[in-house]
């Protein structure tokens, strides 16, 4: 079944994304990993939408894309501010939140 392969692709992308979020120290890379995760979800949505022959999944995927765009906007703004204040975007240096 073709859907299987879509789901496999989605799963692989998801894992790569999670790996990136956990391991990467660069804030931009983390943002990109989050994008990967969101898009792996999109692939799943589209795969099921194709199998069921309905537009719902496509529509939902469009919403996800819009939300992802907004998220990147906010994220990049944060990265920019971080850079402006500290001259670095390394996440490992951000430990003021330490309790």
């Amino acid at each position, binding site marked *: 079944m073709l859907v299987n392969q879509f789901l496999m692709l989605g799963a692989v992308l998801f894992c790569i994304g*999670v790996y990136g*979020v956990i391991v990467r*120290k660069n804030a931009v890379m*983390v943002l990109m990993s989050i994008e990967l995760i969101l898009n792996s979800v999109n692939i799943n949505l589209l795969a099921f939408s194709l199998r069921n*022959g*309905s*537009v719902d999944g*496509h529509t939902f995927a469009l919403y996800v894309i819009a939300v992802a765009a907004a998220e990147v906007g906010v994220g990049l703004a944060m990265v920019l501010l971080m850079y402006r204040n500290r001259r670095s975007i390394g996440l490992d240096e*951000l430990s003021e939140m330490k309790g």
Partner: protein
Amino acid sequence: MLAAATEMTETVLSSGWFLENAWLIPIIPAISFALIIFFGKRMPKKGSEFGVASMLGALVLSAGAAYQWIQRVNGAEEGAYIAPIIKTWTWWQNDGVSLGIGQHVDGLTVTILIVVAFISSLVQIYSLEYLRGDRRYTHFFASLTLFSAGMLNMVVAENMIQLILGWEIMGLCSFMLIGHWWEEGANSRAALKAFFTTRTGDIGLLTGTAVLYFAANEWTTKTLGVSGFSIRGLSSWALSGDPSSAAITVGAVALFIAAIGKSGQFPLHTWLPDAMAGPTPVSSLLHSSTMVVAGVFLVARVYPVFFEGLNILGSGANFIVIIGGITIVIAALLAFVQTDIKKVLAYSTVSQLGYMMMGLGAGAWLPAVFHIFTHAFFKACLFLGAGSISHSSSHHSFEMKKDMGGLRKFMPITFTTWIISTLALCGVFPFSGFFSKDEIIDNVGYSGYNVFMIVGLAGAFLTAAYMTRATYLTFFGSPRGASAGEHHEEEGHGAHASHDDDAHDSHDTHGHDAHASHGPHESGWLITAPLIILATLALSSGFLNAVPFGHGWENLKKWVEPSAEVINPTGVAYVVGGAGEARVTAIEAGYEKSDCGTKTPVDGVCVAPQLKHAPFKWSKAALSTFIVFAGMLSSWFVCVQLYGRKNKKLVGLTERNKALGAGYKFLLNKYYLDALYENVIVRAIAHPIARGAYWINQNILDGIVNGAGTSAKTVAGWVYRNVDQKLVDGAVNSSGNAAQAAGGSLQPVQSGKVNMYGALLFGSAAIGALILVIINT
């Protein structure tokens, strides 16, 4: 019906590889764009080699397609229906709705393909020199190449969605290229203005496409087996008698609003002159010869929709012809008060686009398309000439009054090409503009729009006059400012810093002396070669459709104008009776006898309305030539008196005469349209909302808040004394102690490391998912 068609003697239309694969043409620059973006900076020529090579490749393919199209037409009988080569692949489909992507190649397509690929190639070659050393050299070529990909895609588009795709890519590239030197505030403001103004029109494009789709889809699917987005489907549908007049009128008006925005027609023309803030090659390619004719192309592409929807050739003036006529005159008048040479050319472009629109609105389809063709060459040449002047002689200034003058001695090649293109623009015989512009004016009159013929002639007078003024200020008289060797670079430096710095570096590295020590001089061959090629075409391209010399010279009409025959839906000319007699008689009688556009086809479909063609008369040509020369001479006389000899009567006339002064001020402020848009319309919408919100804030919200505040204060006093001190504090203190203990034990988790938070998040999500799976199975 089918049997009848197959019985008749069919001439098999020739085709060929280039025609069948015209969809490759936009793909080449698209791939090249990706290459420039990813590898451009590492290449020896910083990515420009990809751009130039892809444009030359696209030009070769376009030329091949044009050649094979001409073969195809020549192989058929005169006036016969030449089926376009249409291909579609499914792009997206779901639930019975499907969008295609593909190609629709006919005479109009190959004409515009040639123009776009040709001008793009020359402008990219020109930019090699003009932008040398620019800090965003690679990105400039990337945007330029992407623009060409978008425009070529729009031209070969098979359906409206594909057309919109190309249209929007062009809009984006226009924005990026106008704001190429965005460090200067004025440039980025101009880019935004261009983007938002065309965007206003684009609303019409989406609306029109949607309206037409829902109105036409049923008919096109049933009759032709194509969707309601298909260009061929829409054209046939418009002439079929099926559309309700409301739907097609709304659709046509909406699409025309898009054309108004993109092609700088009144009242949305205000962005085009400001778009001159971009580098000159951009003005030359996007904002004069190719992108801005996209609106004209859109109207020409689905012409039957406009023909039926707006009742072209019907009684009375229609929307298109009125807008076109207004645009010609107001833009030409504005060109007189500009001191920036590029702005003169920009208003001239707006005015010429008005001619094209007026032609389309009056049923002069072919002359309008022909004017796109010739205008592209001479206007691109004029812009590149202006760029050559600023590059080599006036220290990157475009101010005619301040920094130019007397340049004809220093820049002989630029001067000659400028003069040729100016004569072509003014419409002097035998330059190309004469053949196209006079055809438009002639046909507008012939179709019964007498008022607009006079508007066209007045426009020709004004064109000749303002171009003479610009030529005088630039090339004649005595050198002024930067051209005279004055270096006001120190004070002017701030304004041009972004460009000048780079230009200086490049000049130094290329062995030139510093700017200060060399006066005006001719530009290098990378700049003059495109100028010479374009000027040659400005001189000669008119002979492609030289109506004055008789029928045999009307090649473009033969190759490009779609035949108005009634055909059966499979694309073969439809014949009543099956013997081919009806068709033969129609051909013998001259094919201008078709009923398409005036009557509903009974059997079969029409693809193009039958248009009229004005017979050529030397008397009319003599009249317009006389008008042009009158414009030139009167303008020359005034210029010499005003700028050359400083005639006391003329200098400062606008300050002494109140009426003239008012008119001058009115023009200088561009009819106050910018003020209207920015101060009145934007403010009328934004201000009341802000004011209303403030009033609600002050009176209602604050009142509630204040009232709530005072009553809350009394209650709070009581609560504080009784509940808070005694009951709550006890609970809080004990829970605080408990929380402190719990927090202490959880403290290590709050490491402050973002990555670790992520790991925790996904780890717990994974555990949750596992639990879910276990529960569900």
